[in-house]
């Protein structure tokens, strides 16, 4: 039973959630007076402190649950509440921990923007929604926050609303996310109709309705409180649909690259570290619902996503797009982690990824910032995000280079970084899982290995092109790209530290000792370990990373570039698999055509029928009027006309000629006489 007393950890978590909301309201009300962003920063700092306190209280202990009655609909009561378990507090801290540096970074990065007060408000709104999402104790509340983060993301992507690309992108993001939201909502509907509750603990907790008997064994006809296996699968897929949109899984990932139109700081927080990871978090939350079919779907989708995104990243020139695809690819990894049942590993990867991907974005932001300044200063006609215009920046921005290098190594899974721990753990577990699931399943870990090799390649390509290659546009020595300011560098440094191994384990090469995994593993299933792989896979991965680094150096720094840019594979990668064009052709345009058709039908057929009826009625009335005028009234007028006509005719007899009168008189006398004669006869 949930507790109803507000203990300190709960209070802390609640304030951690509500502080950003307060900041949002305050900033929104103050409007332009809140340009400096102090309110938001203070709020998120306090949130971090509160979250940290909650973390220390809850981590490793029994979950704390509190709920208040919210409303009743029919006979079902709905509650609003907090559920603080290991997963929740971990995410709570993580979100705050990422959000705070990004806030600080934003001070410098967004300085001078005319709409910055909106920026702070949106950012606080996002933090509120995201924090609410992780501590929500029931699926409805979670759904609400889920949509709200999408909304905040919409606002932030379209922050520069006068740019067409930005507003197209935010619309796309919201609509694609809506597809996922519908999945989520349907999942909720299925669970609610089967179990009558949406409480996470009641459903998925240790003694939850779904945890004890797995779906496959339930009887075909479900009684109250149970669910048929068919609908269980559907529910799992519905939740996964929600995740696919939010966590940008293939083929619903298309919004994420476009979302890079938002400010880079936003991309780092929302579209790299936290919001997109919410899908993974959701899957981990509802994990007991997934049966084997769903899990297989998740695994496959994750693998495909990981591969496709890595492939698309290869030929991108926009620095942020490369990172965006990298994010998608890593999210695919996490999905595989969920799919193979090791959701604690997936969460671990989520955490490490959050740090290094955020750092990558922030570093990219620093570079873009520098390029933008150079562009404005020297009136250059360049896209500040295009890596072809960069090169040799290592000398201009050494500190940025350092942080970026650390993050890249973490992404590539180099030893001594956090990425190494989580990613290689995932790979190893994937192999272990494949061993249990037959021959065909081996394809999945193999693809993942290829993906991690590709990952190493594209990230080193990025590094090589940006920092080492011969400067192209910047060849002119007068142009100087300034190093990022202190407000930007400090958060980057912090995140760089977090991207290294020490905060997770003291043993840099062994993921088995990560405290974070120990905290989560209690609730997660385990796979039979294959010991040799724990040595072999990391070693091979590291070797591959080194090979790729060399390759990238040779190709991009030394100029031995072997690939034709006109090749089909290359273009497929550059154009992101032509997915956008495909969607446009098979979904968007037919839909618009359909809507125009329906409009036409509405106007001409439906309304036409009505108007036709009206016209018919009027014609009928017209006919009646005609009949009335010409026949009914006509009869009357005929009598009149007859009288008039007769008069007119008789009038002719009034000639004024006496003789005619006399003739008439005699004629009439004649007639009378004749009558008499014949009457007598």
């Amino acid at each position: 039973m949930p507790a109803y007393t507000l203990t300190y950890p709960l209070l802390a978590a609640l304030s951690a959630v509500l502080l950003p909301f307060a900041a949002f309201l305050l900033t929104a009300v103050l409007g332009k007076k809140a340009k400096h962003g102090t309110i938001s920063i203070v709020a998120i700092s306090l949130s971090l402190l509160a979250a940290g306190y909650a973390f220390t209280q809850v981590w490793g202990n029994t979950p704390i649950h509190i709920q208040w009655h919210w409303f009743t609909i029919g006979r079902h009561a709905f509650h609003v509440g907090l559920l603080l378990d290991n997963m929740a507090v971990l995410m709570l801290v993580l979100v705050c921990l990422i959000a705070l540096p990004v806030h600080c970074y934003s001070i410098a990065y967004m300085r001078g923007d005319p709409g910055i007060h909106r920026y702070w408000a949106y950012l606080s709104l996002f933090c509120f929604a995201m924090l609410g999402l992780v501590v929500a104790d029931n699926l409805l509340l979670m759904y609400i926050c889920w949509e709200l983060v999408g909304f905040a993301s919409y606002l932030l992507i379209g922050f520069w609303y006068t740019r067409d690309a930005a507003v197209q992108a935010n619309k796309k993001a919201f609509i694609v996310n809506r597809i996922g939201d519908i999945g989520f909502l349907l999942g909720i509907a299925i669970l609610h109709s089967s179990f009558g509750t949406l409480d996470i603990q009641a459903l998925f907790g240790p003694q939850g309705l779904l945890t004890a008997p797995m779906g496959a064994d339930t009887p075909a006809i479900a009684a109250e409180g149970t669910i048929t296996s068919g609908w269980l699968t559907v529910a799992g897929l519905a939740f996964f649909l929600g995740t696919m949109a939010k966590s940008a899984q293939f083929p619903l990932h298309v919004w994420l690259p476009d979302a890079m139109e938002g400010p880079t700081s936003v991309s780092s927080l929302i579209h790299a570290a936290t919001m997109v990871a919410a899908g993974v978090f959701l899957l981990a939350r509802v994990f007991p619902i997934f049966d084997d079919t769903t899990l297989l779907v998740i695994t496959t989708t994750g693998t495909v996503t990981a591969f496709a995104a890595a492939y698309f990243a290869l030929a991108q020139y926009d620095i942020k797009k490369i990172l965006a695809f990298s994010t998608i690819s890593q999210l695919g990894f996490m999905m595989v982690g969920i799919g193979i049942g090791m959701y604690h590993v997936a969460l671990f990867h989520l955490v490490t990824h959050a740090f290094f991907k955020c750092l990558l974005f922030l570093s990219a932001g620093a570079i873009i910032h520098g390029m933008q300044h150079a562009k404005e200063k020297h009136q250059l006609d360049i896209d500040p995000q295009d890596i072809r215009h960069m090169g040799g920046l290592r000398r201009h921005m050494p500190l940025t280079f350092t942080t970026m290098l650390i993050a890249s190594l973490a992404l590539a899974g180099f030893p001594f970084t956090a990425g190494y721990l989580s990613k290689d753990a995932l790979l190893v577990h994937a192999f272990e899982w494949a061993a249990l699931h037959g021959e065909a399943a081996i394809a999945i870990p193999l693809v993942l290995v290829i993906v991690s090799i590709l990952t190493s390649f594209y990230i080193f390509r990025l590094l090589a092109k940006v920092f080492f290659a011969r400067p192209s546009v910047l060849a002119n020595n007068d142009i100087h790209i300034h190093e990022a300011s202190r407000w930007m560098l400090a958060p980057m440094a912090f995140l760089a530290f977090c991207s290294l191994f020490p905060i997770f384990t003291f043993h840099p090469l062994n993921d088995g000792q990560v405290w974070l995994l120990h905290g989560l593993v209690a609730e997660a299933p385990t796979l039979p370990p294959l010991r040799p792989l724990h040595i072999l896979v990391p070693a091979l991965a590291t070797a591959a990373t080194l090979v790729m680094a060399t390759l990238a150096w040779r190709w991009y720094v030394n100029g031995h570039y072997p690939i034709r840019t006109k090749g089909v594979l290359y273009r497929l990668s550059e154009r992101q698999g032509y997915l956008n064009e495909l969607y446009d052709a098979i979904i968007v345009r037919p839909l618009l055509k359909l809507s125009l058709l329906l409009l036409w039908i509405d106007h001409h057929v439906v309304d036409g029928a009505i108007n036709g009826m009206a016209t018919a009625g009027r014609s009928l009335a017209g006919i009646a009027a005609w009949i009335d005028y010409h026949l009914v009234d006509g009869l009357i007028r005929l009598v009149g006309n007859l009288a008039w006509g007769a008069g007119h005719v008789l009038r002719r007899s009034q000639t004024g000629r006496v003789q005619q009168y006399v003739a008439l008189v005699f004629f009439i006398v004649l007639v009378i006489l004749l009558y008499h004669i014949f009457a007598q006869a």
Partner: protein
Amino acid sequence: METIVFYGFATTAVGSALLLVSMRNIARALFLFFIVLFSVAGLYLFALADFVAITQILIYVGGVLVLLLFAFMLSNKELLQQLHSGTSHFFALPVWQALLIAASFLAILVYTAIQGGTDEPAWITASKMAGTAIHPTDNTVEQIGLQIMTQYLLPFEVVSVLLMMALIGAAHLTRKEETP
């Protein structure tokens, strides 16, 4: 003999009348009228009305016809012209209608006359039976004088007044206007 004379008078009267109505010249028509009147007076004799026949000749021939002739001749020259050329549309519009009506009347009257001949009115039959019809030997003038002075005195007086009024009226109508 008597019948032949009657037919002679009758034929003369009717024939002159027909000629009269088809005559262009008014002067001649008036003379034909004269003949008609004489013939009719003759017919009266056959009806044993000698006094009426005399009166017919006196008043009609002596009065009416003379009046007509005088009026005809006293009218000014234009009128004469007019009268001569007034026959310009002699066969104009109503001739056939007039003929039709006249013929119809003739037919009806003749029909009734013959009808009356076959079954006479009762009073005539009664008069025949009683022998109260006028006989050729009766003195009609005396009888008429007596009747006028007794039975028909009031009509007689009325007629005389009427005649006077007619004369005065005629005189008044024909007098010349002093100021046009």
